[in-house]
């Protein structure tokens, strides 16, 4: 590991002032599960490393006025164990549940997962399906943007060197909504996502889909909303048959996203199974037949 100075601020203000001082060459670590490896392998160098994990104020899950607010330093374990997330935001719960290993879930934070913009992040896929907003702060002030706008493509984000991602929030799913996330991996644990699919559906009193937010992760460079699927679903009854009707669309979408990638043959087929699992979970949440046993 190359040399650097290390800072461990206890408050957000302190952290922001450190970032503005060192913004020319600074790395922020929360859990450190990604950055410490890069530092150790000398793939990443910085003159200053700011460890924000001691900022206790950034570790919370709260629901205020119908909005779910998650502090960026909440670990995957925090979220998995949070009763509200578990019972009401199943997509995010599942995304956290299937991250890496217990050790990584205990260290890794949702803020880090979002800010690192890794192709293989699980939670960004779920958060995009929840139409989440990220809060970025710097010594100069605060700005907010939709998480979709936060990603500017290919592993890049809108985060400036002197900014911290401090909070992620989204509208609390209502009684008429169900969410789900499915991760396809190559084994059962410690695995990088091959396909991640997150869905939020809303139904009206006639069981007609009134809103659909569908996001696929790990296929393109960053998670993508699938407007054609969403468009297909809205206005249709929420049934197994409806879902079966869009399986081939998923396949085509995946093919169109990565037509020349070696993995396309597998991904375009398996995405149908992933979609099936995801929609089954939705049906189950809505207590409709055809869902998981």
């Amino acid at each position: 590991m190359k040399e650097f100075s290390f800072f461990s601020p206890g408050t957000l203000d302190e952290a922001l002032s450190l970032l503005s001082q060192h913004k020319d060459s600074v790395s922020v670590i929360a859990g450190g599960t990604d950055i410490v490896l890069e530092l150790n392998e000398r793939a990443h160098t910085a003159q200053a490393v700011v460890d924000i994990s001691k900022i206790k104020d950034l570790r919370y899950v709260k629901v205020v006025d119908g909005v779910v607010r998650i502090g960026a330093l909440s670990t995957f374990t925090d979220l998995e164990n949070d009763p509200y997330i578990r019972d009401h935001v199943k997509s995010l719960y599942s995304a956290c549940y299937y991250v890496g290993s217990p050790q990584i879930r205990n260290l890794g934070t949702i803020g880090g997962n979002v800010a690192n913009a890794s192709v293989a992040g699980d939670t960004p896929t779920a958060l995009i399906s929840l139409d989440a907003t990220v809060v970025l702060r710097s010594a100069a002030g605060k700005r907010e943007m939709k998480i979709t706008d936060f990603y500017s493509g290919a592993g890049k984000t809108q985060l400036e060197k002197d900014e911290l991602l401090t909070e992620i929030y989204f509208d609390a799913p209502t009684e008429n909504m169900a969410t789900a996330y499915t991760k396809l991996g190559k084994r059962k644990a410690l695995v990088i996502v091959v396909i991640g699919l997150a869905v939020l559906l809303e139904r009206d009193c006639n069981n007609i889909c009134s809103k659909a937010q569908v996001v696929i992760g790990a296929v393109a460079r960053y998670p993508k909303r699938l407007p054609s699927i969403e468009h297909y679903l809205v206005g249709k009854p929420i049934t197994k048959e409806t879902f079966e009707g869009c399986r081939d669309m998923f396949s085509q979408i995946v093919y169109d996203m990565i037509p020349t990638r070696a993995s396309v043959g597998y991904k375009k087929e398996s995405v149908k199974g992933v979609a099936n699992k995801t929609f089954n979970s939705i049906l189950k949440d809505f207590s409709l037949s055809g869902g998981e046993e």
Partner: protein
Amino acid sequence: MKKRGRGVASMWYGIGNTGLPNPAAAFIEVLSDTSVNLMVGCADIGQGSTTAMAQIAAEELGLDYEDIHVTSADTMVTPEGGATSASRQTLISGNATKLAARQAKGTLAEVASGFLNVPEEDLIFRNREIYSCKDNSVRMTYKELMAEMKKHGRLAVGAGAYNPKTTYLDPQTMAGIPYEVYSYATTIAEVEVDTETGEVEVLKVVSAHDVGRSINDVMVEGQIEGGVVMGEGFAVFEKVEYSNGVIKNPIFSKYLIPTAMDAPDIYSVVVECEGECGAYGAKGVGEPALIPSIPAIAAAVEDAIGVHFTSLPITPTDVLRELDKQKER
């Protein structure tokens, strides 16, 4: 849809190097307080040979397992052990250990025979005692025996070496005796294949192994269980990816071995089959433990979806590709 299948496979495995001499040796000394130093060349890499050697020495000497201290694989202390490979150490170093113990026991028997006035061949060494097989009230403790040894200025030392009875193989036809003895095994695997994602889940594995004699059941089972899970990796997960001579996945995040969540429920069955050659008939299990689980899992996948895979590993990609071909037919 999830489809289940079951498959069977067997194997044989010659113990020791193929058609080559591959000896190993051991030194032993029974000390005056009846504790024992065993010096054996064999390297214990976690399979448990040190423990097995101690058990063999204790049995042969009639002492307890706790009495034996083993120094292993230190070239200035221990004699040649050969490699810990070819599942050979229980058979070969085991026999060497037994022979070393037997030599020390020869001296012990001489002295005990004089003391008890019982012919050497009638003496039984067991549970830290020496007694006559004809009349077990004629007995002495090991402590008494060692005191007697001291009195006579005798030392209970032994050296043993063993080379399995093989011949060189004919260079043209490979005729000859490649191994002294073979271990056998049969494995039955049950899998579940997700026909939508191609994932193969290994649910249960039964693995029955003829080990000749089990020196230590828990350790034999440990070998079998580890072998089954390594076989699972071989069959459905693992592959070194390389191109232009460069290994692309030399790390655990890219070369996937099974985790605790992937390992199937394993039922190991230890089969003992009388034999002459091993120490107390023990053959070997280290490599046999792995081998049949690989074809058994492949056969189970075939049973589930009707595809005779001829290339490993069987990945989800392969499963979906073959299922697709099936549909086209």
